[in-house]
């Protein structure tokens, strides 16, 4: 990917935020997963979003770790290979709840706004 840095930055800023949220939700719903597993679930959930390179998952994972919303632990994967498993923390759960609330509120407003247009 040799796109100019500027392009990726704009798109990725918006998507990074949503990616963080989606990873938190995935971990909360599905329990501890390793990076590959998370990528697969996300792929299932929304194909369009993952036009982003899969590697960016790790950027999100690092950030979530730094914020203390997820924790990492080395363990054994399905094929008995060494893998790092991520799980959501209590703080992460709280953050997830907060962000879900925010998201729903915003989407509710946009929803109403769009319906408003339609009424004319």
């Amino acid at each position: 990917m040799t796109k100019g840095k500027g392009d990726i930055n704009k798109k990725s800023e918006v998507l990074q935020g949503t990616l963080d949220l989606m990873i938190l939700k995935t971990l909360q719903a599905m329990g501890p997963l390793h990076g590959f597993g998370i990528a697969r679930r996300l792929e299932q959930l929304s194909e369009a979003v993952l036009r982003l390179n899969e590697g960016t998952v790790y950027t999100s994972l690092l950030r979530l770790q730094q914020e203390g919303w997820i924790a990492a632990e080395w363990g054994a994967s399905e094929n008995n290979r060494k893998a790092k498993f991520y799980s959501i923390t209590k703080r992460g759960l709280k953050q997830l709840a907060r962000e879900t609330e925010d998201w729903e509120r915003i989407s509710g407003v946009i929803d109403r706004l769009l319906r408003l247009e339609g009424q004319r």
Partner: protein
Amino acid sequence: MPEITILRKVRKLWQRMRATFRHEPRESEFQAEMEEHVSLLAERYRRQGMTAEAAMLAAGRQFGNRTLLKEDLRNMQIIPAIEALRGDLTYAARMLRKNPGFAATAVLTLALGIGANTAIFSLCNAVLFKPLPYAEPDRLVMLSETDRDGRPGGVALANFVDWRDGSRSFSGMAALRASSFASSFILGGHGEASRLTGGDVSSSFFSVLGIRLMLGRNFLPEENLPGHNRVAILSYATWTRRFGADRDIAGKAITLNDERYTVVGVLPAGFQFGSTAEDFQAASQVDIWVPLVLDPQRLQRGAHMYHVIARLGPGVKLAQAQAELDVVAANLAKHYPEDDKEKGILAVPLADQVTRGVRVALETLLGAVGLVLLIACANVANLLLSRAAARQKEMAVRVALGASRGRLAQQLLTESLLLASLGGLAGFVLAIAAMAALTPHLPADLSRASVIAIDPQLLIFTVVISLVTGILFGLGPLFGSWRKSAGESLKQNNRTSSGIQTRLRSGLAVAQIAIAITLLIGAGLMVKSFWALVHVAPGFRSDSILTARLSLPGSRYDDNGKVAALERALLDRLHGRPGIQSAGFTTYVPLSGLDNDWGFLIEGRPPLPTGTYNTAQYRPASPGYFEAIGIPLLRGRSFTVADTAESPWVVVISDSMAREYWPSENPIGQRLQFGSEKWRTVIGVVGDVLDQGLDMAARAEMYVPVEQAPNL
């Protein structure tokens, strides 16, 4: 939005800071994870039927640029700016180590430039920039009487009192007797008699300066009155040296000049006062302070032996105060024409007064070393330019690898700043060493510089100057190396210097030569003046001359006759001793900075208009003085032991006085009057003495025998 407490933010920052300086990057962890991820992806593609190679390629594409990702992850874990700086510094250090010759030359050049500036700055700081050590020093002014020509001089006590009572612009005014007339005290009753230099002041002196006494109290206003003035305030040094730092000293009695004084207070350590740069000299500091006697009946208006300081009232500007003083002066001129006609009052900020003599010289020096630093910068810039030409290929490769111009500039600037810092460090050390070596040899005028210390201001100055220097010469190579495109630079047959670079280097060389020549010419002129000064004949001899100061207690030697007798006795004892060719006494040694002048009348001349006087420097001297100090006798005779208070009163005048007042006749036999009703006959003319300074004209001087002197 997520809540982040300040504490967590700080912890995050701290973790990133630590990670920046850790040797092992934590990339390896992610490395394993990412490789695993990619191989899993590849596996999936293989199961879909791709070849191993194709699967790997597809997996890589789906995963994304691992190098960039690793960099992003790393940048999230450290502070990228510091990491970049660290890298640049390491690289710069390595470059310097690989070119020791260049590094040494550059650092040495900078060290000389920065060091010279630091040294001179520290001097200027101590003498010019540091505020005087008093409360709100910018509100303090010095008041002087000015003569017809506007020249400032000493103040008479009666005038001081009238100024104080007649002006409203000042919150306080005080008088101090000039050091030429300072009292000298013999401290008795403490074993060996010791001589103390006295400071005679009005009672508000210390409060005008805003000084709080360390022990005891200040003078009271009534202590300026006769009969109540036998009190004293000790300087800190005197208190520790002569009184053993006795904390109960306040109220105790001491003997000064055979009289009983009561100590009322002690000044804090480090208190200094001087009206000129010389007065700040440690050697002439006042040991003991006593109140002036301001007897309202006997205030003199003719003896101008005092300095006056004042503090401007709140909100009063100097110009306003000066205007008011002009009115006061005009009033006094009307009321007292003999003494104050055509005399004005000049108010000068105290700080300016103290630095007056040396300000120009020091500022010139500062300018000169500034130019020297510019030369050093140009020199190093030139060196860097030559190297930049050679490094073009390296720069081109970096650009090709993806470095931005800004990043390159950052790296080059870091190298320059490293060089400048090393130069600054070396320069600082050099400056300290130079100052330590030179301070003992500084002229007396600059002795406020004895408080030169390595203070924070000096360090800040050095740091700032090093940075500015680094940026100045660091910019040079930047301009040079950007012109060519990366591609051109990488070609094999590339000539190293571009046109712009060559022009820049020539320009720098020309600038250096121009500045250097300017400095050389300036220095040459100064050396020439100095040479001329040193070779000026002072009018007396200073080689093989020993001087000693005698202080006689006023109580035992209250009569000039007794003083003269002592001098005669001492001279008799010295006469004929091996090693002593001749000896004599005088009240003021040439070039001592102390002087005393009197107005005199010449017999037979028409009276001068009121308020104008002929004045000459006045010097009591013993027989043998002229011979001992090598002042030539041009006409007539000098003093002998026969010249006593009872014999006819005589005076010996200097050559310039003779020429000024008797241009076409012989002054011998003419009569003068001053300081007494008795007329004095001129018996001799001696050579001029350059008493004020080797660069100033000789003044009229009149010498009298000790016994015939008005007061000592």
